[in-house]
């Protein structure tokens, strides 16, 4: 029997990073319908940083969370609707309660890879509401496999029903993925998944490696639509898994159609591996920083690549966008001092 892989599609969430959270209502409708037709099992929607994140700091979304969830729910019938939840951005009373009411099926509760403790109350609330909660460990390249397991076990004990590690910076090579996924699969009783980014061109092979190491959940976005260099390209992933004999349950032709729809509707230019994305991957810094880094580089007249490496030295993580300015300012001051000297 073919090994079953559960595909989660964050096109309408991670992809929002690629367009500064400006995905339109029409885009949500068009892609929900296309994904539904292709039998995508789970579709993640929302602001790039998840529920409750729309703000001046990380970017204001063109649609409210309520609008996104309502529109998506109307067009998802067999596909389950998922959201990304980062405690801090997302509060239980203001955001989670309403999300449950609006019919979200899967809550992917995320933290930085060494801070699983902050997910306790959110996972607990979701489970008490009778909904499915997963634990998401972001920037997972910044922790050793043993630390990741320790953090994942925390989420498991809070009630998480699956753990997904995110290669948020697109920094992994296949051996890194294999080591981490094997450790998690061996140490946890719940399913393990992988969410790739393509900064170093490794997203698809890393996802295949994850499956071979025991992962049963893989994230992929249509045309790679996602932060920075983009996510693992969903239609490629489905094709590759089909060739390898894995069962995703997704209709290949229909997901290829969905890629065409995405191209015409909201994603005319697929994310590419820009020079800055490569640096982001090498520096191990969140891919979603590419746009604010470019802006800061222009404002302070410094090399954006230096900003990325500076952020890498400071172990910057998503949500620390203010660090970009700090690093850019330091670099500008250093450059000015060097010119004077």
């Amino acid at each position: 029997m073919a090994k079953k892989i559960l595909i989660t599609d964050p096109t309408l969430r991670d992809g929002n990073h690629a367009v500064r959270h400006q995905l339109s209502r029409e885009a949500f409708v068009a892609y929900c319908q296309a994904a539904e037709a292709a039998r995508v099992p789970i579709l993640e929607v929302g602001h790039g940083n998840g529920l409750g994140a729309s703000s001046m700091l990380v970017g204001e979304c063109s649609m409210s969370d309520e609008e996104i969830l309502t529109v998506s729910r109307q067009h998802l019938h067999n596909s389950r609707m998922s959201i990304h939840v980062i405690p801090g951005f997302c509060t239980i009373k203001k955001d989670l309660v309403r999300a449950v009411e609006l019919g979200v099926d899967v809550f992917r509760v995320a933290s930085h890879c060494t801070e699983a403790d902050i997910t306790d109350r959110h996972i607990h609330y979701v489970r008490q509401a009778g909904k499915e909660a997963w634990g998401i460990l972001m920037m997972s390249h910044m922790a050793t496999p043993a630390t990741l397991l320790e953090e994942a076990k925390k989420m498991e004990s809070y009630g998480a029903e699956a753990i997904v590690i995110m290669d948020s910076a697109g920094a992994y090579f296949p051996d890194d993925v294999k080591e981490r996924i094997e450790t998690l699969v061996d140490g946890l009783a719940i399913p393990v998944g992988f969410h790739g980014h393509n900064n170093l061109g490794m997203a698809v092979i890393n996802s295949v490696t994850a499956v071979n190491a025991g992962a049963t959940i893989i994230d992929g976005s249509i045309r790679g639509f996602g932060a920075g260099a983009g996510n693992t390209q969903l239609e490629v992933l489905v094709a590759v898994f089909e060739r390898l004999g894995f069962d995703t349950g997704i209709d290949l032709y229909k997901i290829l159609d969905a890629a065409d729809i995405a191209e015409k509707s909201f994603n005319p230019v697929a994310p590419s591996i820009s020079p800055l994305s490569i640096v982001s991957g090498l520096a191990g810094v969140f891919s979603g920083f590419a746009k604010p880094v470019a802006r800061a580089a222009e404002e302070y007249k410094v090399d954006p690549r230096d900003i990325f490496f500076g952020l890498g030295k400071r172990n910057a993580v998503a949500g620390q966008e203010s660090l970009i300015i700090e690093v850019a300012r330091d670099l500008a001051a250093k450059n000015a001092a060097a010119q004077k000297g």
Partner: protein
Amino acid sequence: MADPRFAETRQDALAACAHQPEVRAALARQHLAVTGGTGFLGTWIAELVAALNDQYKLGVTLDLYARNIVEWQQKYPHLAGRLDIRVHSQDVRSSFEFAKNTNYVIHAAGIPNNRVHASDPLRVFQTTVSGINNALEAASQLDGLRRFVNVSSCLVAGSPQRPGPLTESDYFPLPSGLLHTVYADAKRAAEMTAAIYRSQYRLPLSTVRPFTLTGAYQELDRPWAINNFLRDVLTGGEIRIHGDGSARRSYLYGADAAWWTLAALVNGVDGEVYNLGSATPVSHNELVRLIGEQVSPKPRVALNTAPNRQQKDNDLYPDLSFTVRRLGVAETCPLDQTIAKAYRWFATPQ
């Protein structure tokens, strides 16, 4: 006693203690102390003391020691408001004293909730290890102490990974130094501390090792499989089982667990360990079927949400022959009734 739930718990308590008149007689006019007194087991012991005094006029008095007592007093006024039950705010991590007239001590303080094991392992370890140290030290000051019962855990046996029941002398490897085994490791250390006090200070001491306990007075958010399944049914959701559903557990009703602990006070022998759990194993699949009988329509079940994983033998239930022989106890609440009672407790608005 306006709340109908408490009428049922009173009947359960009376049923649990009905068949051992000699234990009831031995408890007459005795003063009991329970650490962790507002937890599941402690609350059931309070329920039993209330039932024994009201039904049999035994004149038992009870001190409950716990860290947070206000919420318990508000939730269970039928127990907190009684003159024969006193509640004391006490964190067992600090040294303390029992009332001088205490005859029996049940040390039940501990944090079995594995959500806390992961997030605050230091508190888990200190509550268990410092807690028993302080409780034993306090007990050793008592002139009239008849027995100290240490409430340990079935987890001290390690991970069996073989089918069948666990006896009190079964031990399997238990990895040390890993955070997720902090509770089991701490409970092992507590059993050793208790053994030292029994040997070095001749403290009359026995141990009970609870397996899965359930029923009234349980909190629904405790992360045991049965609670997860009951909650999924109550919220109308799908029941999701990781694995193939063949894992087996057993479920002892709270009233029986509390009575058996009181029986261990009276009939326990120094240094002996008694399993505290039901001897009837039930697979997760069967458990879900039984829970489904409580509701209509039947709940949807998603099996094997973690496929491609090699299924290991996953049994955790006790061999009760030693407990039954030594303590003379018997289960008064069969599995189907235990599940029905647990369901009613959780389904009733609180």
